[in-house]
């Protein structure tokens, strides 16, 4: 082998780093309305191109076009807009709270609001999401009380999780929102297990898994796809590709595959890519996949193509690893602005009503915040008790924990 040139290591790098000029011209964005809508029982092999395209409904003019359009009424769309605006306002206030030291940590959704808000509306009562930390839209779109979310974020005396869990790692069984884990990807296979249980019990409820682009590299992603494929579990597996992990661009997780959706093809799992900044498209694709699951046709993999506009969390500053202007250059636009425009084009909305709604939503969020803060914030006011720390490790407290609690005198 002496005649071979030396090997070299290939380390993928994003097109630009701070100082460079963002350039998304190589990102192929199909025209809105251009991707066909196959029947839900289509042979996965026959629709593999869906894993390499992007399903889009809203065009540049704000019109809903193509075979995935026309599923939602004005009032449903207005709800959707309100949910996304609420999530954005909520994020802004909580970010500020974190900076003010009222809590330790926060993670925002800026730019990705459509994904969880729209998906939630395609689900039925009893369905169960296994979310990551960036799907609070699932709660907001299900009318979970903002004040309870804030109580959790503040770890205050009304925190439904008793101060045990980090901010934003909510849990609400009755809203179909599984307890968020701080560990990546673990919940993906749990979603499959939950779906298998539903099938075992001849139930009609389905499960939904959520994962980020970066976390698809985790091994539990594989476990989930293997189990889902083998048992044809009634589950929708969502990948939220917001282009970045923490400082790591999606190319490190994706490698040589064209898309994340393509991962599903090797498992015979239908895989679709959708414009994650297009409320209507997300909803339409969600409906399609959920129907597949509900009709016992098995799992679907959906890659939501979006962009994380803000920092990964309050612990990092994206200016250290990507150009500041990158989010502006992102070709899929802003989900709120796009839906607003569509509603205006439909004649169901106006700039004035939008401004008014913005103010009302802010009021609602601030009112919730005031109420939550009456119950304390992380370092001030009402607190969960030390007793709460010892409880709930097991249903019944075993003797050794009794001894330890006793030692503390609580």
């Amino acid at each position: 082998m002496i005649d071979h040139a030396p090997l070299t290591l290939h380390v993928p790098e994003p097109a630009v780093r701070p100082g460079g000029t963002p350039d998304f011209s190589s990102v192929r964005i199909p025209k809105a309305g251009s991707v066909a809508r196959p029947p839900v029982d289509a042979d996965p092999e026959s629709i593999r191109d869906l894993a390499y395209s992007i399903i889009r409904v809203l065009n540049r003019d704000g019109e809903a076009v193509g075979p995935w359009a026309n599923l939602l009424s004005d009032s449903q769309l207005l709800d959707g807009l309100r949910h996304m605006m609420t999530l954005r306002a909520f994020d802004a206030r909580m970010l500020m709270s974190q900076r003010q030291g009222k809590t330790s940590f926060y993670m925002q959704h800026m730019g990705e609001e459509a994904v969880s808000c729209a998906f939630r509306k395609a689900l039925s009562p009893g369905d169960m999401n296994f979310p990551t930390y960036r799907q609070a839209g699932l709660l907001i779109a299900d009318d979970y009380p903002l004040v309870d979310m804030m109580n959790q974020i503040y770890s205050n005396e009304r925190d439904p999780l008793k101060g045990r869990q980090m901010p934003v790692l909510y849990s609400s069984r009755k809203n179909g929102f599984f307890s968020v884990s701080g560990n990546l990807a673990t919940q993906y296979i749990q979603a499959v297990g939950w779906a298998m249980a539903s099938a075992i019990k001849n139930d009609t409820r389905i499960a939904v898994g959520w994962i980020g682009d970066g976390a698809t590299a985790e091994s539990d992603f594989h476990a989930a796809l293997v189990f889902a494929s083998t048992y044809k579990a009634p589950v929708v597996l969502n990948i939220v590709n917001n282009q970045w992990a923490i400082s790591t661009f999606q190319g490190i997780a994706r490698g040589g595959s064209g898309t994340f959706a393509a991962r599903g093809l090797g498992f015979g799992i239908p895989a679709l890519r959708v414009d994650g900044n297009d409320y209507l498209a997300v909803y339409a694709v969600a409906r399609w996949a959920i129907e597949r699951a509900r009709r016992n046709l098995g799992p679907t993999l959906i890659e939501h193509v979006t962009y994380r506009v803000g920092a990964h969390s309050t612990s990092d500053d994206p200016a250290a690893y990507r150009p500041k202007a990158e989010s502006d250059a992102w070709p899929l636009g802003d989900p709120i602005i796009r839906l607003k425009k569509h509603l205006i084009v439909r004649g169901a909305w106006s700039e004035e009503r939008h401004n008014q709604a913005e103010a009302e939503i802010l009021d609602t969020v601030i009112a919730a915040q005031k109420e939550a803060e009456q119950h304390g914030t992380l370092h001030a006011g009402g607190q969960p008790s030390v007793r709460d720390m010892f409880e709930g490790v097991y249903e019944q407290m075993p003797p050794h924990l009794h001894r330890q609690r006793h030692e503390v005198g609580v």
Partner: protein
Amino acid sequence: MPRRTMIEAIRDAMDVMMARDANVVVFGEDVGYFGGVFRATQGLQAKYGHNRCFDAPINESGIVGAAIGMAAYGLRPCVEIQFADYMYPGYDQIVSEAARLRYRSNGDFTCPLVIRMPTGGGISGGETHSQSPEALFTHVAGLKTVVPSSPRDAKGLLISAIEDPDPVIFLEPKRLYNGPFDGHHDRPMTPWSKHHLGEVPDGHYTIPLGQAAIRREGNALTVLAYGTMVHVAMAAAVETGVDAEIIDLRTLVPLDLETIAASVRKTGRCVIVHEATLTSGFGAELSALVQETCFYHLEVPIKRVTGWDTPYPHAQEWDYFPGPARLGRALLETMEQ
């Protein structure tokens, strides 16, 4: 009363629970049609259907992770990890998820899950079919850890584990599957049918988690043991003539510290025995606890007799295994001090 091997007793526990509770499901590698490499689930698929007992892909994280999802749904999965040595790929799901789900969600979601795994050596299985990883579970808040030493206990404890509202690690000393192995590997094997704890009642009964059993009363010295080592300890006591009180812990977490402390306060001497590696083995915790609770009653140092701090070797298995000769020496030394 019917006599059963430990494998039969374990199978019977699952059978009883699957019949009583439609939410009990059983799965794992090779557990379906074949009934498991140790045949613990033999016949369950035929009896309860593919829905309730089935083969899993070879992915321990997937097995545990899927089971957690099922438990959160409301089922009571009882899964098999083919050998405890192969639980590591599923360790994250056990530690980060199963153990903490109730706590982190404040009871919004819970995880009634049993993870069965054959453990321990003595079958020429080398480093990957012989391990005793109990200490890796006892360190994790939110888990219970059980190690039966007889068919009767195995069934009663497994039923308790399946009925438990929290995740239970159920470690089955594989060398005990067919008889009360006492470490005399060169002698003919005694079958369970000749041992009184091979008598296993039919139907439903439980042995509560967290209660030790005194297998032999004695006044001179307390031996703390579990699993296979209970039988090794019995042999060592008989062979040395030391008047040892032998406590079978049965459950490591929660631990029956009262029974332990009462015995050591009586005898003033304590020897701890386990098959796992010495350093940071569960014997360390036992030693620390005995010292903390019985300090002023201890006449001589607590001794640990354990596997060495090496991987479990293939050819030198009986040099690694803490058998009755080694334990016997420790008993005598402890008496002579």
